[in-house]
């Protein structure tokens, strides 16, 4: 008698076959997934509704649903797109140009290094590295403290380094491996940007490149390179070495192997890396603040700027945040398609 309910209980947790889930597990899984969907989407929904609210509707809130518990207003959208007009579009275009170019560069250059670090063994000499750092320190010292011309100190430093390497490199025995290079690369991302922004500012100021797209593209490329190298390395490592070896036997050069075998096969990884770096450079704030003044200003500055002497202008801010997500979403959709295509072509070739 009492067996029946127990068996129902058991039934709930027992899958019909290996491919499908038990009913209870299914309910549980879906409710977790839906719950998380709510967590993810609610803040975005709130931003979206806020962009249609009048100031008084925000400070007197909460109001949840437009038309039902408050009368939506387009005032914030009008302010951002009509009153500010070109002042919104310019940073928008800047962001698109800067983020996309720096991403492409970072991913390509980073992939080259990642490929090299997975397949070629490097043995940089400890002595040369120490020598380099000492000489660079000297250059910085002479420029900053002794106030010599940077062009001069840099060329002296370079000359010193070259002669140093030629003169002493054969006495250096101890060398580092690929893992050390890798770690050195990633460690460059640990430094908080606050600390490195001033030297970078001075560098571009000396070159007369402040407030240009170029400065921001180069900087973003540099700060994101480590991530590109690291992520791509994992994806390249999974590609069987045999493919490369047979191609090399056929006489293909390294560059060709990299371009025609590795890059296409790693497309899913390439897409994921591109996406991540695109997002990071799209959203970067502090470096943009200093390297741009007017012409090259980017969107995150616009968002942050909505908090001024009158407190955060939630409605304007919400508009900007919402419109800032759009291009990234489009890019994500586009890149997502590339992933599935990449897998397909990869399968055909493999």
């Amino acid at each position, binding site marked *: 008698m009492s067996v029946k309910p127990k068996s129902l209980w058991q039934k709930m947790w027992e899958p019909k076959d290996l491919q499908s889930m038990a009913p209870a597990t299914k309910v549980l899984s879906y409710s977790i997934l839906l719950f998380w969907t709510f967590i993810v989407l609610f803040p975005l929904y709130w931003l979206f509704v806020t962009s249609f609210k009048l100031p008084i509707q925000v400070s*007197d809130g909460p109001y949840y649903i437009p038309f039902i518990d408050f009368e939506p207003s387009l*005032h914030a959208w009008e302010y951002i797109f009509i009153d500010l007009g070109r002042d919104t579009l310019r940073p928008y275009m800047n962001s698109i140009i800067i983020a996309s170019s720096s991403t492409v560069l970072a991913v390509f250059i980073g992939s080259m290094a990642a490929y090299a670090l997975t397949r070629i063994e490097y043995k940089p000499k400890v002595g040369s590295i120490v020598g380099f750092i000492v000489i660079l320190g000297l250059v910085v010292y002479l420029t900053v403290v002794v106030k010599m011309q940077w062009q001069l100190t840099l060329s002296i430093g370079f000359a010193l380094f070259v002669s140093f390497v030629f003169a002493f490199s054969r006495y250096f025995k101890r060398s580092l491996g690929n893992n050390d290079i890798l770690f050195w690369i990633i460690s460059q991302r640990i430094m908080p940007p606050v600390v490195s922004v001033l030297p970078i500012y001075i560098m571009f*100021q000396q070159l007369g490149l402040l407030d240009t797209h170029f400065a921001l593209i180069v900087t973003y490329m540099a700060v994101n390179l480590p991530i590109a190298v690291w992520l791509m390395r994992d994806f390249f490592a999974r590609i069987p070495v045999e493919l490369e070896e047979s191609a090399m036997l056929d006489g293909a050069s390294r560059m060709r192997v990299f371009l025609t075998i590795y890059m296409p096969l790693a497309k899913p990884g390439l897409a994921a890396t591109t996406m991540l770096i695109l997002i990071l450079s799209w959203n970067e704030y502090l470096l943009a*603040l200093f390297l741009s*003044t*007017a012409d090259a200003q980017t969107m995150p*500055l616009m968002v942050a*700027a909505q*908090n001024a002497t*009158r407190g955060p202008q939630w409605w304007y801010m919400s508009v900007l945040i919402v419109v800032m997500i759009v291009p990234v979403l489009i890019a994500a959709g586009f890149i997502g398609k590339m992933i599935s295509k990449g897998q397909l072509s990869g399968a055909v070739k493999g």
Partner: protein
Amino acid sequence: MKFFNLNQRRPLSKLLTAITAATAVTLAAGASTAIAKKFDGVTVNVMTFTGPQIAEPLQRHAPAFKELTGATINIITVPYSDLYSKLLTDFVTGTNSVDAAVFAPQWLVDYADPGYLEDLSSRVAKDTALDAQDISPFFRSFSTQYQGKTYLLTLDGDFHMIYYRTDVLKAAGLKPPKTWDEYLAVAKAVHGKDMNGDGKADYGSCISKKRNAQAYWSIMSIAGGYLQGQGTGQGAFFDTKDMKPLVNNDAFAAALTIYKDTGKYAPADEINLDVGDTRGLFTSGRCALTLDWGDIGTLAIDPASSKVVDKVGASMLPGSTKILDRATGKLETCTTKTCPYAVDGINRAPYAAFGGWSGGVNATADEQVKNAAYDYFSYVSQPAQSNADVTKGITGFNPYRLSQFNDMDKWLAAGMSKGAAQNYLGAIKDSLSSPNMLLDLRIPKNQNYQGVVLDTAIARFLAGEINVNQTMETIEEGWNELNEDLGVEDQLRLYKATLGQ
């Protein structure tokens, strides 16, 4: 020499303006042709912060100015929180991409002392259109000057006042507070009442207490009445004898206690509210009292943001019946000798917190650019332009000219009732004409003294990490350390210089 004090922005009259200006140029310069304007081909890059408060009027006046003089005014904006360091970086590294800037006069010393800013004294002296005598003496002679020279033109008048809900106080039979003890009493009496008709209990007092926001101004607004009795020149931050910080004494302890006690009649998360939040709360009718700059006056009459139209009163900062004896560190009852400016035995020191946005000119710019930049700031500050700007809610410009109090019409046109306008302007006038106005700290690295040492200690005090005495010791220690770092003698000399001593 100035010829463009006409305020006409309508298209039809633009032509007339242009002709008048051109004629004036011919008459003044004599030699030049009738068409050539004074600053043809000159472009001035003016930096300020993003947002309509300052950038909007600057942008709005630019076309008319170009019409008059031929100079193109190019407004560059950066986020408010980073304007200080952005400008400083530009000056320090010699980038000089900014020809002129509108910024907080508190930063003046950091920019003027190393010589980045142009001395405008002689220009101001020659400038009749500016009508400098109309500018309130506090801004004319303290706020814009450094070591006796004028480096800035005031575009905005900023100082703290308190605001109260006239309807709430009336219903409770209370008068606007004159001392901080009264402030607490009023807040206590009305706390928990429903003030906006939504059936929920509202708050007695809302004051910005957030860290890295305005807390370090709020505390000085309270402490001012206890610390400074002898007029602006006495100062309230350091003893002018030996640069001893005035933060470890009974006066400051009283202010700290009051500041914390206002939190009893406030929203639970007041410790995380900045002035934007308290403004939102006040204008949506949820607080009976608040401490703020002039902005609330115009925000409260804007129906898009306010539920308290015509229910707001303003008053000069409350004070104290006791004053600090600097020799003993104890509070003594005010006498005519210790508080010469006290009224009814109450010493009040309206605090010029922040000091009002002002324009300064980069010393390294070309002569013509400097002239054009100066003329533009003068143009925006002239009564014809500024008297209208200060009544507009969207601009962050608050009154600073005497004529702005006399002419009530613009305020009535902006939507204030006569009573409210009289009350609001009266409070501003009282504060500005007070000879005991408290000047903000203007010595080098003042951001470090206030924004870091004072602010962090206050934040830890409000959070309960440290008690009153520990707080005062921490601030004193921090300020002394900064004094020693920068040279006690130097700082003392500069501190006295800002006070006109």
